[in-house]
């Protein structure tokens, strides 16, 4: 059983009287622990696919089995529960709550899951330490650099130890060096077994993934699996 199984997924947006097929008959299997890059030109449906995988959006047709369970038929609140427990999101624009400190931002998923405060504190402290943020725990997002913000966001996305980590252009707002650091962080999480699905425009970053999905006009054009050494840009550690 694949961790993620999409079959015949369609997503259509209606703008006035024109229809946009953001996703057109997408079928896809992703196994647990995979590292997938989703690539393609702007407007090809990458974000739409990621939102769908993260249960933020519903397909107009087709089925989505997450860990063998058809999640398209779940109610909004049931989807929220699944999202909370199994899925982590990382966004291009970080999406930190500006009035909360780094530690409080990281604690948000635990709070939403109803974990009591005294259990949250040590878990958040450990997560902040893992991402080298212990000195920034009480800083607000505006007092952090872009790279630090994205690290806070990743700490938040992984605090519930999700099975799948979804990242939509996570390095899009970062300079090259910081972007590489963030990429390395995500890859380390993947190495620990988390499925990693990254949307990226950066061929270098895409090249590091073991599997690349090339999208165009809402359809999957190519599904490239890197052989052990096919990618010359890989891993310049």
């Amino acid at each position, binding site marked *: 059983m694949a961790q993620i199984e999409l079959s015949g997924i369609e997503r259509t947006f209606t703008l006035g009287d024109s229809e946009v097929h953001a996703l057109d008959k997408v079928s896809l299997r992703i196994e647990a622990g995979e590292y997938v890059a989703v690539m393609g030109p702007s407007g090809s449906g990458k974000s739409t696919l990621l*939102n769908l995988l*993260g249960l*933020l*959006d519903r397909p107009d047709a087709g089925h989505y089995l997450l860990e063998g369970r058809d999640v398209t038929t779940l109610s*909004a*609140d049931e989807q*929220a*529960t699944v*999202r*909370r*427990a199994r*899925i982590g*999101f990382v*966004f291009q*624009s970080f*999406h930190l*709550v*500006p*009035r*909360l400190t780094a530690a*409080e931002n990281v604690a*948000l*998923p635990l*709070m*939403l*899951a*109803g974990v*009591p*405060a005294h259990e949250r504190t040590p878990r958040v402290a450990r997560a902040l330490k893992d991402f080298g943020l212990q000195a920034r725990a009480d800083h607000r997002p505006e007092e952090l650099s872009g790279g630090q913000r994205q690290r806070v966001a990743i700490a*938040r996305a992984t605090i*519930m130890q999700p099975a799948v980590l979804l990242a939509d252009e996570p390095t899009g707002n970062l300079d090259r060096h910081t972007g590489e650091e963030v990429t390395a962080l995500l890859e380390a999480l993947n190495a620990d077994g988390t499925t990693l699905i990254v949307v990226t425009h950066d061929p270098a970053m895409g090249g590091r993934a073991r599997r690349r999905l090339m999208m165009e006009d809402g359809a999957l054009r190519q599904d490239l699996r890197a052989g052990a050494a096919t990618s010359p840009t890989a891993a310049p550690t």
Partner: protein
Amino acid sequence: MTSADTLRFAARAALGYPLRTSLMVLAMAIGVAAVVVLTALGDGARRYVVGEFASLGANLIIVLPGRNETGGVNAGSFVTSTPRDLTVSDATALLRAPLVSRIAPLSVGNSEISVGGKLRDVMVLGTNADYIDIRQYHMAQGQFLPREELGRASAVAVIGDKIRRELFGATAAVGRMIRVGDNRLRIIGVLAPAGQGLGMSTDELVIVPVATAQAMFNTNTLFRIMVEARHRDALAPAQKQLEDILRARREGELDVTLITQDAVLGTFDRILGALTLGVAGIAAISLAVAGILVMNVMLVAVTQRTGEIGLLKALGATGRDIRLAFLSEAALLSIAGALVGYGLGHLGAWGIRLAYPVLPAWPPNWAVAAGLGTALGTGLLFGVLPARRASRLDPVQALAKR
């Protein structure tokens, strides 16, 4: 999400926008403060009036000359131009009514009191021995007027406490002679200090036998007659008996007015009831305005925090979590406003009490409870719509917004 976390989250959100929050709290506070102050004023006035008339005694009937207040037009109104005066013999006649236990005729005038070179204006009240029991006053020293025939003008006087202090200071007053107008009178008693009582305080009064007062002011009319019924239930039949006696003594024409405490209190109750209604109206309006403000502010908050709502949903918040968070925020703002308003209102009531010490301007408990309750109620009520809007936001679009 636990309720403690929901509350904490809502509080952080409210504190995150201090200007918005303080304006909001202020609006709610003004509404609640208005309720507290206005009801304190209204209830203070009511308590003042009730207190004043309650001190009159519950089974009292006051007879005054002239048919002006409750009567209306009758045949006699056209015959006589001036009403007949009340006299001491009227007062004596009233004692014949079986349901009347005692009476006190009242004759009032202003004069000068002098003793040992000290001179002072005083109000002189002519009455009889029963007056002290009817009004439930108490003696500090000596005794009240002697029990004697109403026609006897004994040269005695009972003085109020303030008069005693001003004229005699620390020396004994009872037994001393004073001059009131042209009369030399012997002080036989001093009233216990009383404080306020229906306009005139007994502390500044000189009380003499009714005949003495009438001689002093060269009149044979009475200002008022106070009649005490045997018990409270006998008030209405006693009033009837009095009317019959007086009518018989005035060739069938009742040109006097009879007032009971109940009638007076009833009138004031109606007036003050209307006042309270007005207060409730103002309160309702100001709180409704505050409620609409809460809604507006919360709707702005939802728009402002669209991205945050999208994020919370992406992190696994259910619609209920979001709804409760925003509803709690509205509730917290309302509670804060209500509490601040409660404080401000009490401050205002305190100010009123300071400015008008006779007015017991304390907000009644029901008004405070209603004010706080309504504030919270409107806050929640008007918070529902924004909260629902927030919980129904589409997460993808919410996230796309920055």
